[in-house]
């Protein structure tokens, strides 16, 4: 687990770009945090780094967007959903277990029991220090994520 403090949206963009350069296919990223903490901005920058050229917006109403970059990116937003049945209806579990592509889930904390066995949690928090200050914390849930997180942490801190 490691945290980064970003002092502006621009720094959040830079962090997401670094994640985009290291993230591996088959990874599920679950984004937690209140409205306006930078989740969507993070996904936009991540997608752009992964070669997506079109528009990236949170699928609050259409629930899932698929972007074609260097690999497919499946972008879910669970904000509007209330029951597990709805997740099944949109094929959520099928995508969670897909080996191809990268999955990003916003508001994943609404359905803690429905998340895959192994994923990377990304928590966004507002800090008192400044209006645009955020603490962004990466942690691995389940096995298989430790190595990736270590590599990501080194890359974020040293650029290597």
């Amino acid at each position: 687990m490691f945290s980064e403090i970003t002092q502006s949206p621009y720094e959040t963009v830079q962090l997401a770009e670094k994640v985009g350069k290291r993230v591996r296919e088959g990874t599920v990223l679950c984004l937690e945090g209140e409205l306006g903490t930078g989740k969507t901005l993070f996904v936009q920058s991540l997608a752009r780094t992964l070669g997506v050229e079109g528009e990236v917006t949170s699928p609050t109403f259409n629930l899932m967007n698929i972007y074609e970059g260097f690999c497919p990116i499946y972008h879910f937003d669970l904000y509007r959903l209330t029951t597990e049945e709805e997740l099944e209806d949109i094929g959520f579990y099928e995508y969670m277990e897909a080996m191809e592509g990268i999955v990003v889930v916003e508001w994943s904390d609404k359905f803690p029991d429905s998340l895959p066995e192994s994923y990377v949690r990304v928590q966004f928090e507002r800090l008192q220090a400044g209006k645009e200050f955020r603490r962004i914390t990466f942690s691995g849930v389940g096995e298989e994520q430790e190595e990736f997180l270590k590599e990501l942490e080194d890359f974020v801190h040293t650029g290597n």
Partner: protein
Amino acid sequence: MSILAIDTSTQVSSVAVVSDGKLAAELTMQAKLTHSETLLPHIEEVLGMANQKKEELEGIAVSLGPGSFTGLRIGLATAKAMAYALQLPIVGVPTLRALAWHFPVEGFQLLPMIDAQKGNVYVERYMWEHGKLLKKTEVQVLPVEEVIRRTEELPGTVVLMGDVISKRIEGKQTLPMHVMLAPLHLRMPRAANVALCGLELLKEGKTGNVMDMEPVYIRRSEAEVLWEKRHGKAI
């Protein structure tokens, strides 16, 4: 009799044309989750390869599920639209039944299984008797380990097939001696099976209606509730 058959219940996308007792053409590929982009071009290609005008088809068979919700919706929507536009009879073929057509041999216990996610599978048991495929148990949603445990009680050779084999069984589970895994080419759904199975259903007059035919969705959450009622605890 010429029919077009479609199976998009798993990651495999498969389209076939059976015409006058011949498997005229089949295109089967393990696509990623992009059936929506590949299915219609594949249909066009297979019809072309079989030299079959779509206006001269006499029926459409489609794999009904259980399986990937997204895949089933794409397959069914496509089959329905074509059946409606071309005014053709449509027949829904149970996906697990079509899988059992890979082994039309008497004396084997056939267990077709499709991934139901989170370690669970949709499973039915079939046997061939006197040239007929008989379903021995209705569809259930069970953990993979439970299905393997239950094979210990089955007499004769048991054949496991379906997408679950490569994903969760081969090299990951210990199997009893009398249980064998279907080889790769007889493991995943194929539209040729759907066509053959569909032709039988068509002959029996078991056609569907484009207006109200639905995929076989079995929600895991519902299945778990039933399991808990019967067994008193969650899986």
